[in-house]
């Protein structure tokens, strides 16, 4: 099922489907999940979960030297009626239920934040306007935590918009009640100096649907862990992502879908375009189908489009199946490049060079941008991508 096309030199597109009695995803990690940063050794860089990440660019988030200095980020939340927005302390019992930190930086965030934002959508409330959470970097170091909880049969769209400059480690929990529907768009539109690391945990209730669209455009280093688990049967998760990795940027997305419950679905589609020297995108897609998860239906795909020389992609889909009683399971990964021959072909049909590049990138991302469903945000992201395209070619 894995395919690799025109893989540029220096890139890897690996894939595996393992049929195992026990998952190796957990045993590959250097420590079991924990809320306490002390349970994780300081990484040296050769660990499976850190081997693609330039630790020296984490600005101390991984070794305890990054100290929050109050000037990290400003969070502003705009919510329509029917939504409760609270700022709570560390001891709030609702926090940390959707998932446990799986690496040292996520645990550092959990051990270090002082206040958390809790956004609650009442049972059966169907919002017609999105909840907008603006996280603006003010240049300092910050640790954060957010919880977004939907009551049974509630429906909401949440946009988390990251801009400015910061060194930020923050986790987000999404808890979906039975039959709830949540769409989350997390935009990483950081300045090119920002560092952002975080774990997003979704816990999906019975027959609930979760759709996440992760859009990473900025930052010096962005490393996110979108993770999904199911609280009961019938849940559905769609994980979409797009990234535009520029010169010198490191953008890493590490997905995990834990099919721990029967009759749930998941579909992951991540696409990235890369351009410029030292652009590095990493995509890890771990999907576990546990022995109990009969009737699972899952598919995951990662595609990368390399626009110039000097960019590197590491794409590793990994599917582990512990039961054969499933509806479907598959994965695909492909890295293609946009090269001079392609440019020549388009130009030979009358299309000017700049438009040719735009055509290729726009077309490549179209299906994902459409998933957002918010015209103002879609337009902003397309414009941003086109500006970046012009900037460094």
């Amino acid at each position, binding site marked *: 099922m894995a395919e690799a096309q025109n893989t540029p030199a220096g890139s890897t597109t690996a894939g595996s489907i393992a049929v195992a009695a026990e998952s190796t995803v957990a045993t590959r990690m250097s420590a079991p999940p924990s809320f306490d940063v002390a349970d994780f050794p300081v990484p040296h860089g050769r660990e499976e979960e850190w081997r693609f990440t330039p630790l020296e660019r984490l600005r101390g988030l991984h070794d305890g030297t990054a100290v929050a200095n109050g000037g990290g980020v400003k969070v502003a939340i705009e919510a329509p009626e029917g939504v409760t927005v609270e700022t709570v302390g560390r001891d709030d019992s609702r926090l940390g239920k959707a998932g446990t930190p799986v690496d040292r930086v996520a645990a550092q965030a959990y051990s270090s934040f002082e206040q958390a934002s809790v956004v609650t959508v009442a049972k059966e409330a169907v919002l017609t306007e999105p909840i907008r959470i603006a996280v603006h970097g003010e240049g300092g170091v910050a640790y954060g935590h957010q919880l977004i909880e939907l009551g049974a049969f509630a429906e909401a769209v949440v946009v988390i918009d990251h801009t400015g400059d910061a060194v930020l480690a923050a986790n987000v929990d999404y808890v979906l009640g039975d039959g709830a529907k949540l769409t989350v768009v997390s935009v990483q539109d950081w300045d090119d100096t920002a560092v952002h690391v975080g774990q997003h945990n979704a816990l999906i209730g019975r027959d609930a649907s979760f759709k996440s669209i992760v859009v990473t455009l900025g930052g010096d280093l962005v490393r996110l862990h979108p993770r999904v688990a199911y609280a009961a049967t019938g849940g559905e998760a769609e994980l979409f992502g797009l990234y535009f990795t520029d010169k010198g940027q490191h953008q890493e997305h590490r997905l995990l879908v834990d099919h721990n419950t029967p009759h749930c679905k998941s579909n992951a589609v991540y696409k990235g375009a890369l351009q410029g020297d030292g652009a590095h995108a990493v995509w890890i897609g771990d999907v576990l189908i546990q022995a109990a998860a009969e009737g699972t239906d899952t598919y995951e795909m990662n595609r990368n489009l390399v626009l110039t020389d000097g960019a590197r992609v590491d794409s590793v889909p990994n599917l582990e199946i512990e039961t054969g009683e499933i509806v479907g399971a598959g994965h695909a990964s492909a890295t293609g490049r946009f090269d001079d021959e392609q440019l020549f072909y388009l130009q030979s049909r009358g*299309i*000017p060079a700049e438009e040719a590049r735009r055509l290729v990138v726009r077309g490549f991302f179209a299906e994902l941008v459409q998933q957002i469903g918010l015209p103002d945000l879609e337009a902003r992201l397309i414009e941003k991508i086109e500006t970046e395209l012009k900037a460094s070619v």
Partner: protein
Amino acid sequence: MATLEIRDLHVTVEADNATKEILKGVDLTVKQGETHAIMGPNGSGKSTLAYSLAGHPKYTVTGGTVTLDGEDVLEMSVDERARAGLFLAMQYPVEIPGVSVSNFLRTSATAIRGEAPKLRTWVKEVKETMAGLQMDPAFAERNVNEGFSGGEKKRHEILQLELLKPKIAVLDETDSGLDVDALKTVSEGVNRVRESGEVGTLLITHYTRILKYIKPDFVHVFANGRIAASGGAELADQLENEGYEAYTKGGPVSGGNSGGAAA
């Protein structure tokens, strides 16, 4: 009437740190409404001629001129040449990830025509042209050339030819890799464009097979980077029977020895 004039064209390519001259003085005039067949052995420089006309960056023109209606083609960028009315159906069309055929065709038609075609008539035009080439409408939603078979790629090239209606069309081995049925279908597409009388066609081929369906007005033998002989359709029959040997043996053929096979 549109005229493409190629005069004493010399072209080199960089290969293995050495500069290699491939075209060694090509002279050819193609007028709107005419069909010229260029036939020659492998490696004689036919594709190099086609790419050089289209402006491929790998080929360096070291001498000679190319004009289209008196305008200097060699001064134009690749896309300018296309907008001026040159079209190249490629021997090996390129796959473009991320761009659907329908999006590509529309962007291209917009660039060539100078304005976006009206959506309703455009969709119909594309559908009908695809049907004429026996292309499944599903191709419109696939990425350009991605996963196309050899024959499907060639149909897609001719689809573009029909939609873009150039003044001068260079078809580089459009016949290779096609079975007889596909060859017929593709030739019909080329003939639809020719019937307008508004296109000059330069048909590059290795075999005479396609000339049964697309009748040339002139046949040129290409050998060692230049035109070694020119004649009418009967020259193709002669090549069919005797091969290219007479033109390739005995070192470089002297310029302008028209009818060299008899020598």
